[in-house]
């Protein structure tokens, strides 16, 4: 009898004698029964070197870099922005002093949709959920006193991503820094906005063209800049299951890659700067296994489907963050603990960066104090717990390896399903991803409501009778900021050379009708202080609007 046969026989005996069949059932996140225990027999079929390997080497299951957190912990970059550029600049400086690694800009809704602050539709939303950016003048204030040559800036914006990048390049130029010297990440993932969250501006094909313009520009001119950061998180937060999140994100990423290849870029020219941003729940082992599966699958897709040759082109680099939707409004202080567990799942999953939501997210954007706690949660994990000592500490776990294989297979099914529907763009235009996500969201809502998925303080161990009054200090929107924002916008419009602005916008429209890369034209337009709204309106006139397939 071989060792493996002995293990199988022993496990069979143990199950009979211990009557493990009578134990309560446990289901994994795929809804399937989990064994009471996993043994070497469950993983005996896995070829270690081929399927798991070593960190920093194909297929990267154990991590994208050889040293992982031994070299340095993940990048801690809180998502932050509100009010005017002055307000946000102050908050950023505070967070940098507290140890934040770079800045991750949150833009308000008008900015994300490409509307100026004086647009009637923007009236009630200016500066509420993020910083308000109308023109280069705001961007100059936003980065005032920050070292652009060393700072890592990340921009959470999609539809107007190209314009925001143009403004950042223009701020650098004003300080004598060429685009080549600027480092950061632009989310620039338009497709996720059509699936969830709705921050779209144009018909889908035009959005894809702008994304590709940015990718091409960064490939040629900005070696330190990551031109897209594919957002699974937007879909997960809208309710997508962990498998749909990964599958749809990879399908969307494939559409961007194909568009860049069609543009004439070689895969190894740009694929080394693709990164992802995923949401993480509190099911620690499944989440960690999913990230391991995602690394292996992405590496294979890049190598086999897109023909990447450089190992750097095959890396699933990701920012992971506990999704705000996993937080609860009842007993909100408990979110600190949920956050810490989700953070652990990210680290066990091998994340390169993390934002981490503040505990008061169900109610408002963070205060200075709640943001500091979100940063400290990460710092305690990185420097006090020892999780950074070795790469992929769950590698070899019989259960985690089994889950990794199963999750990979399920994610592949989702990608193939989307490809079978004509690819991401067609699937989105038909409302397919939207419908799947709404199904997932409803299923989860029922699970929680019916108590099948425990949520402490909500559907179990909930405070009864009268909940104790909590005195919580939430972030308050400053209504006066609207006037300050409009004042700067009007000042900009009063001082600029209107002839030059009109000329730049006309040229932008002419080039938008053609196939030229729009980035140089956008940079000139923002340098003449054409506003974000004016530029986006000019583009919308050429590109046409998007008609939402309304799906419940």
């Amino acid at each position, binding site marked *: 009898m071989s060792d493996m046969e002995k293990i199988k026989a022993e496990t069979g005996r143990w199950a009979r004698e211990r009557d493990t069949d009578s134990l309560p059932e446990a289901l994994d996140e795929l809804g399937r029964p989990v064994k009471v225990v996993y043994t070497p027999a469950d993983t005996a079929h896995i070829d270690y070197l081929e399927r798991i390997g070593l960190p920093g080497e194909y297929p990267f299951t154990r991590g994208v870099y050889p040293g992982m957190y031994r070299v340095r912990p993940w990048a801690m970059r809180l998502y932050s922005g509100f009010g005017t550029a002055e307000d946000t600049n102050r908050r950023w400086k505070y967070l940098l002093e507290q140890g934040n690694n770079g800045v991750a800009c949150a833009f308000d*809704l008008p900015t994300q949709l490409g509307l100026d602050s004086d647009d009637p539709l923007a009236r009630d939303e200016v500066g509420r959920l993020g910083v308000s950016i109308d023109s280069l003048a705001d961007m100059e204030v936003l980065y005032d006193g920050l070292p652009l040559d060393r700072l890592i800036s990340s921009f959470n914006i999609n539809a107007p991503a190209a314009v925001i990048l143009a403004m950042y390049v223009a701020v650098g130029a004003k300080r004598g820094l060429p685009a080549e010297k600027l480092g950061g990440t632009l989310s620039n993932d338009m497709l996720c906005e059509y699936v969830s969250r709705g921050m779209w501006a144009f018909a889908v094909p035009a959005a894809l063209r702008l994304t590709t313009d940015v990718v091409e520009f960064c490939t040629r001119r900005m070696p330190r800049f990551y031109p897209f950061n594919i957002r699974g998180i937007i879909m997960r937060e809208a309710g997508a299951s962990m498998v749909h999140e990964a599958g749809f994100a990879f399908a969307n990423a494939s559409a961007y890659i194909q568009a860049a290849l069609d543009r004439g870029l070689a895969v190894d020219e740009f694929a080394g700067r693709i990164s992802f941003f995923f949401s993480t729940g509190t099911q620690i082992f499944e989440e960690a296994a999913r990230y391991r599966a995602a690394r292996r699958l992405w590496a294979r897709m890049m190598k086999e489907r897109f023909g990447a040759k450089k190992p750097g082109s095959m890396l699933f680099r990701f920012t992971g963050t506990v999704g705000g939707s996993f937080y609860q409004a009842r007993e909100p202080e408990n979110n600190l603990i949920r956050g810490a567990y989700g953070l652990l799942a990210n680290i066990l999953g091998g994340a390169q960066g993390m934002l981490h939501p503040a505990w008061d997210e169900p*109610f408002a954007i963070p205060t200075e104090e709640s943001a500091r706690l979100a940063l400290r949660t990460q710092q305690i994990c990185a420097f006090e717990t020892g999780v950074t000592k070795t790469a992929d500490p769950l590698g070899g776990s019989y259960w985690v390896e089994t889950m990794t294989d199963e999750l990979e297979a399920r994610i592949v099914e989702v990608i193939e399903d989307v490809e079978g529907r004509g690819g991401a763009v067609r699937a989105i235009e038909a409302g397919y991803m939207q419908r799947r996500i709404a199904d997932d969201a409803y299923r989860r809502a029922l699970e929680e409501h019916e108590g099948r998925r425990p949520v402490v303080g*909500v559907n179990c161990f909930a405070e009864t009778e009268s909940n104790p009054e909590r005195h919580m200090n939430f972030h308050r929107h400053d209504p006066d900021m609207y006037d300050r924002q409009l004042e700067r916008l009007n000042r900009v419009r009063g001082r600029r050379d209107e002839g030059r602005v009109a000329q730049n916008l006309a040229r932008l429209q002419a080039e938008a009708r053609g196939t030229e890369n729009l980035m140089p034209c956008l940079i000139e337009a923002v340098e003449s202080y054409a506003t974000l709204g004016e530029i986006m309106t000019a583009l919308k006139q050429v590109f046409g609007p998007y008609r939402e397939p309304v799906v419940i």
Partner: protein
Amino acid sequence: MNRKIRVLMAKAGLDGHDRGAKVIARVFRDAGMEVIYTGLHQTPEEIVRAAVQEDVDVVALSMLSGAHLSVCRQVLDGLRAAGAGDMTVILGGTVLPEEVGELKALGVAEVFPPGSPIDAGVRFLTSRYSEAT
């Protein structure tokens, strides 16, 4: 009430987070109501127009951007001006506890802040419309 309760589920303003709106729309539907969903980025005027055109009983607003006070005021004023002041307007979303009183004073029939059970709206509407008959 003999006929089904007709609900317009409306996403007002620029906020595109519609997970809650879609979940609650399905909960309403499963409870036997007729639900019309507006889609995203609706102005108060568009919501009023849709509510009147569809002759709904209830306008359910979903907002997560924080701009609810102003939007609710405009929707309520618009409905009254259109002769539809008897429609029930309810609101779900990121409402702070101390804003609930002000919203109700404006005429919002009920507010469902974060943490509300998903059937809270159904319970509120069924009791309101069974009392009405």
